[in-house]
């Protein structure tokens, strides 16, 4: 699983950089975004029961604050 996590981390970083180019994430927030996405990935995969709802909610709000609000991401 550690190898999978390493690969996922690489891909997360790559994807976040791609989103900067599309304008969904500001360059100054890229590191924070990568950190939060990695945290969610790692917590979800490490715990026997996944990430707790309250922890997930708080982290997503932090992501939402640094992403562009109202952007039609993923549509």
């Amino acid at each position: 699983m550690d190898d999978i996590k390493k690969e996922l981390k690489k891909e997360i970083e790559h994807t976040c950089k791609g989103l900067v180019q599309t304008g969904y994430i500001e360059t100054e927030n890229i590191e924070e975004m990568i950190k939060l996405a990695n945290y969610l990935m790692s917590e979800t995969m490490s715990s026997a029961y996944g990430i707790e709802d309250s922890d997930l909610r708080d982290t997503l709000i932090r992501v939402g604050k640094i992403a562009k609000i109202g952007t039609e991401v993923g549509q």
Partner: protein
Amino acid sequence: MSLKFSIKSLHIINLREMEDVKIDFQKGNNFILMRNGYGKTTILEIIKSMYTGKLLCDNGEGIWGPNKEAKYGGSELDSYSDDDLSESSAELEMEIYNEQGGAETWKLWQRWDHESGENYFQTMIPGKGHEEGWKLPLNFSNKLKDNEAFADVFAFDAEEAVKMIRKQKGDEIRNAFREITSTTRLFDLIKENDGQIVKVFYKDLDKLNLSEVDTGAKNYSSWLHKVDKLILENEAWSKKLTSKKDENQRIHDEKKKKWDNLGSGDVEAKETEKELVKEEDELLNELKDKTIELLISLGNPGNLQVKQWKKTYEMHNVMFEAKIPEGVGKPFFQDLCNKHECVCGELMTDSMREYIRKTAENYLGRDELDLIKNMQREIRENKNPQEDIFELGESISQIKKDLKVNARKLRAIRKKFNPKIQQERGILEEEMRKLRDEIEKQNTKLEEIISTDPNKIRANNWDKGCIKDTGTLFSISKWGGKNNKNPVDNLYTLRRIQKTLKQKVSTTEELMHLETGGRVIQLILGIAAENVMEEVKKDTQRVMSESFHDVPIVEDYDIKLDDERGIIFINRRKEIQKKGSVGTTLVAAYSLINGMKQSGEVEIPLIVDSPTAGLDNTSTQGVVETFWNQSEQAIFIIESGERDKISLQVPDALSDEKSERILIRRKDEKSTGANQKGKMIKSYNSEEFFTYYTPKGKRE
């Protein structure tokens, strides 16, 4: 390796075909020889159930239920009392390697209590002792807990595996990949319609009673803006009204002074008038006070004595006399019907439940009970006893009579004044009356704007129905914020609405962030996970294909993992074949295991029931030589036909050096003939392993 373990022993007691069998396993290849129908499937199923934490019960609810086949059905129970037979159990002892590479011995039990019908797990954790439930370590649970598709890859019945590979679809392969790479929970997190992210978002939306985030947030912000504006307007209005009222009062007082100074020339009449006016003022003040008191008393349901209240009061008394606790109503009896026992301890029967259901209809529902409780509270908090209403009514009538008498006296005295003075006074009186009316209106409006007394606000409907009986909530639709028609002017109410709206706005702002954050993370993790899975699939494909070609099979095929169709066979002309022969398909299954082992970073014992089923002699040799020695531990459950085939093709496979041979048979069974009953016994590496029972017709 993120998961490495081996099985040390399996101990089955009083379960299906077995009374009491403990099998010890070694590293390397273990062969269990037993007849068909003696429990081969039970061994495989119990191990898979222990791996995944899914109880081996037959009704899907954790209860073994009435399936008597769960219990051992043998006739010789010489070593057990009746008490022992009330339970069945399976104990799996494993050596699991921890993150630091050290091996620890874990024990997992699955038990069936035939008295209560319960089926449950217990775990012995190294260094901690026994705990209830399935508590195997994180590296184990990450790979195998609830992951049946993955468990099926490493513990399977070869005949079933052939069927499975033939039927397998792309999504099943995809799930197995997610399970072996421990990414199942990651995909569950980001799933588009019912993933954890979506669920967390909808939970917040439900809490705010909204159907979507944008509308709610927009409405709350716009309403808050209106409330802010209304508060400012009403604060300014109250100042303006106060100043106008004071000005009116000043003009009125001047006129009154002028009116007072218009003497009649008759000193005695003037003095009498003064006294009568003073008395009138006192009476009017008293009338005002008493009227307010009466109004407050009338607002108390305890004082109303209306029909509905009387009924409620009587019903409460009946319940009290029947010694039914306050608050007991229909919901209590409905809950009682769902219990196994009554409050008295007696077991519930259907007829008791039917009786209670019928009787409960006569009791009050939750709404009525709430009403009663509210009325009781009003009575308890009532500061005005019931008789006050009548006394107050009498006092008010008397004051009104006194006022009439006083007015008559005044009119009589004033008729004695000269006509000119009477005329001037009449004009002033009319002007003062108008001023008083205006002041009265201004006072009422001011009171509406600035009152902070919740009872007075509610009694006068100055909150327009926004504040509910609990005193803390408000109804957004009633305060006039939507269309501003007849809005609330009471500042106390408006400030409460403002406070609530501020909270809602702050929450909906969070909700907007939550929605955006969820969508961004779904996108990032979705792309990342799919890319990684694609790489894993490529690696698996490579290993699988190499393993497949290591075994000589009749058909000259290649195999591939297909997103739509699962495992597919491709012939030399690059054409897709619908299916391979049984042998080819089983070799594909073994190849898939090899591929999965690499991708999943695992060293898990390979457990196969009928491991060479459907393989011809050449393929048997190929499979044995290619796959059977690649696992640190393998357990093959075979019957005598397979034993003979393996002995013939690869004699070395069953040698003392390369295998642990376990024979399981009935204690006194004959070596030929049909399956028999009786105590199950086992022997390790005995010569009998090679001679035990060959079905009729196959004996050499």
